[in-house]
């Protein structure tokens, strides 16, 4: 699936997105896999209270299932307006 990063998560991880091969069942499982990869991922996901997630472009929660999902995005709380 495609995994996207925005704002300071993008800066901390150093890329705006990537293709990820994963068997992760939920968003939380995917986060755990990513955080275990490298320090920059671990740093970005260190405090999940500061991270929001969208699954196939809809806001979701960390327990959201990933079966059949094409795109997951991680970002800080939004600051529009």
């Amino acid at each position: 699936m495609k995994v996207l990063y925005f704002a300071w998560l993008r800066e901390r991880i150093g890329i705006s997105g990537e293709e990820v091969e994963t068997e992760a069942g939920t968003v939380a499982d995917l986060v755990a896999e990513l955080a275990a990869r490298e320090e920059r991922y671990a740093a970005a996901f260190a405090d999940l209270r500061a991270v929001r997630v969208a699954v196939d472009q809809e806001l979701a929660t960390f327990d959201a299932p990933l079966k059949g999902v094409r795109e997951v995005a991680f970002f800080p709380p939004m600051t529009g307006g």
Partner: protein
Amino acid sequence: MRVRIQEAVFDPGAELSAFTASARGAGAVVSFSGVVRDAAAGLEAMEIEHYPGMTEKALSDIRDEALTRFGLIDALVIHRVGRLLPGEVIMMVATAGKHRKEAFEAAEFLMDYLKSRAPFWKKEATGEGTDWVAARDEDEAALKRW
């Protein structure tokens, strides 16, 4: 297009005039414009990042919800992205209803949702460097009234 995301500067007065002229049957039109405020002394620019695809979808959904919920005749949302300068208009919403109450309420509803449910992120650039603008608890709390 009633939901627009663009880099280009726009004229909120001209947008409002066109919107009002096309809102047939409306007895009330309300508009709000957000402006880049020089809150951090020495603000040089505001960078607005967004999530192409999801932004359009989120704004359309919020607009649809406002139309239904307040029985509006029409609603307009314009939001800029990219690099903005202090004093420039960031975004506007306009609502048209039969009466002022629903037009005012719908404009507040749109703003409350747009602030914390549409995927935009602001970053301020000053002479000292750049900083992401933190989301405010009050903005999240504001959604509870709806």
